[in-house]
């Protein structure tokens, strides 16, 4: 029997075009992060740790890698008798053709049959591209306690930045009385995190109505939440205060990696009571050669360090040759830095080779360089 009666749906359909070449062959939630993980490991591990047994992953864009990655639910322990991770793509149906998901709400609507098969009391709707650790079971307790129709996770942002976010205005009991998308004059600093718990019975009705509405863009933020607020539904804000990062751009992805170098970083990946599970291979430990020099680094098993590494995050199968230098950078799985090469303030994509003596990146550049193509060496 499930510990909670809540089923999770992860929206993983984003093209993530602001991540440029990183998402050309890989959906955004499958992008590598933190020396070892893929972004989607975070919501999936949170689900597993929160006692959620059934997770639907909604995807439509270039999803071979994401698909086969999440389909192996065993990575998160979600392959027991009654648990599973299911990849849900748009489907051809008896009464309608094949169509893409038209919006976040439509993605759920198109999978009402899937949800109904598990008959949950609540559904949790998550985004597949945030880095954070959160106990959804606690959020559910709050939802139940409040007798809410919808609970939206929010976090406090600096007031002066609030106009960049979707802001929830609440009364003293945390009930949401107004939702403003990027308000010019924000009345509160509680920004929506795109994490929702809905009482399924209520939401199911709203989704069916929304599907019929020709004027709707079928989006939770733009359409469903306003309809709920205009009706007499009970929406509550659940405040979250831990580490949270949207890694939608190269700079923010790089920053989120660099955060791990702090000795007291808030994400605390080595907390064994809330592990982030991922593909973990039987590769050899990290090999640090006699010629290596490491000054601040976050390094995964299977990396081979022959050169110098400063303030960098190094994934597995990365090879840094003797005499090479890697500074303030992120090297994704299988990246190779040959002898004499220098990598500075860069994010090197999977399996990219930086040739002999090549210089890549610039200490003074404001933006982080994405290296998604092999760089030729010089003799």
């Amino acid at each position, binding site marked *: 029997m499930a510990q909670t009666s809540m089923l999770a749906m992860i929206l993983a359909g984003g093209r993530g075009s602001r991540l440029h070449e990183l998402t050309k062959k890989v959906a955004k939630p499958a992008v590598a992060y933190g020396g070892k993980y893929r972004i989607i490991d975070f919501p999936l591990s949170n689900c597993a740790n929160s006692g959620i047994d059934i997770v639907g992953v909604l995807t439509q864009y270039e999803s071979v890698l994401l698909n086969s990655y999440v389909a192996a639910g065993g990575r998160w322990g979600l392959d027991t008798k009654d648990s599973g991770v299911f990849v849900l793509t748009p489907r051809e149906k008896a009464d309608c053709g094949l169509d893409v998901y038209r919006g976040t709400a439509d993605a759920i609507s198109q999978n009402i049959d899937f949800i109904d098969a598990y008959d949950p009391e609540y559904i949790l709707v998550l985004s597949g591209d945030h880095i954070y650790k959160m106990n959804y079971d606690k959020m559910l307790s709050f939802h139940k306690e409040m007798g809410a129709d919808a609970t939206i996770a929010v976090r406090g942002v600096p007031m002066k930045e609030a106009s960049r976010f979707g802001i929830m205005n609440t009364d003293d009991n945390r009930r949401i009385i107004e939702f403003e998308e990027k308000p010019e004059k924000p009345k509160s600093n509680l920004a929506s995190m795109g994490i929702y718990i809905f009482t399924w019975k209520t939401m199911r009705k709203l989704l069916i109505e929304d599907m019929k509405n020709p004027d709707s863009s079928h989006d939770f933020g733009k359409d469903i939440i306003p309809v709920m607020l205009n009706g007499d539904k009970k929406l509550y804000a659940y405040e979250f205060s831990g580490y949270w990062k949207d890694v939608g751009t190269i700079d923010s992805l790089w920053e989120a990696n660099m955060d791990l170098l702090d000795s007291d970083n808030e994400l605390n990946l080595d907390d064994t009571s809330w592990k982030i599970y991922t593909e973990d291979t039987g590769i050899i430990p990290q090999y640090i050669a006699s010629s290596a020099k490491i000054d601040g680094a*976050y390094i995964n*098993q299977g990396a081979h360090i022959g050169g110098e590494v400063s303030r960098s995050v190094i994934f597995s199968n990365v090879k840094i040759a003797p005499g090479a230098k890697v500074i303030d950078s992120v090297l994704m799985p299988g990246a190779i830095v040959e002898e004499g090469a220098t990598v500075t303030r860069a994010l090197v994509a999977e399996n990219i080779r930086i040739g002999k003596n090549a210089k890549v990146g610039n200490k003074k550049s404001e933006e982080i360089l994405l290296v998604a193509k092999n760089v030729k060496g010089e003799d």
Partner: protein
Amino acid sequence: MANKAFGVINSAANYIRVEGLHDYRPIGAFSFLGRFRVIDFPISNMSNSGINRIHVYLNSRPRSIVEHIGDGRHYNINSKRGNIQLLFTQNNGHSSIYNTDINAYLENLEQIERMPQDYVIVAPSYMIYKQDYQKLLDEHVASGTDITLLYHKVDQAKEYYRACNVVTLNKQKGVQSLERNMGTAKEKLISMDTYVMSKEIFVDLIKKAKKESSAYSLADMIALACETLDVRGYQHKGFFAAITSLDDYYRANMEMLEYATAMDFFTSDWPFYTKTTDACPTQYFHGASVTNSMVCNAGLIEGTVENSIIGRNVHIGKGAVVRNSIILSYADIGDGVYIENAVVDKWVEVKKIKKIVSESVTPTYVKRNDKL
């Protein structure tokens, strides 16, 4: 694949004893490179050779191996079509003379006789090497021999491999004798305690042993069988370690710090599988200095590490120096501590004693859970 075999993985004989580590787990459960367990190697060899029915014999303290093997999915064994079966013995006083492989087989003879395969590959849980058993089996069948035995030529048989058997071969690779290594010469052919034979001969040897002596091992029976059966040697090449003493254990780990040795042994076409733990990457702080070492995940490295193996979730404090040592998982080496030539077991905390050094060739062993 015309010839099919099932696998048998065996525990170390009752006279084999590795100081310290062995008090807490069988040799198969010993950590190798801080990441693997010794038994991962024979199981992976079998899995990679297409053997998907494997019997693992356990005697004393089976918990760690049972947990490690689980249902064997991580060894890439299809759990429906094949399986890794854990077999226990009642007779589990480790050093009892009755605690032999033969007695373990006898207790589980029903399981053995029920196996549908025609051949058996017997391999030890206390040796580390890479071998394609399918190739060995094909060779065995093609040669028409009764028993094929794997051996390795070594040149340090005086210092190491002291609890192993040595073989002498005739010109045709026929085994003339199989007996304990007395350390009489540097060069010896060490038996790798790995055999291929038909299930029929295997069962026959087990049943005969019962009549011969209640304390006989399979190796003893094969030694006897040399007189009546066609027993041949098959030479193994490449990395080989027999974990039969603390010296052998230490040396096996240290040899892997030679990068060429490690790269030759760990190749993508012959993966060694292990149970993984979802440990996060290792953090190297400003001021840390690590050279010629293998470091496992979830470490916090603030001090100096040289020529060492660092297990999972290990903390090396500020100003601490770890040299020529093996530090197993969850050990905490406090600030300013100096460790040289030591094997530090799991969950050890070194805070108050500031220096641990072994002057001899044999490393110092620090006991599991100790607080120093």
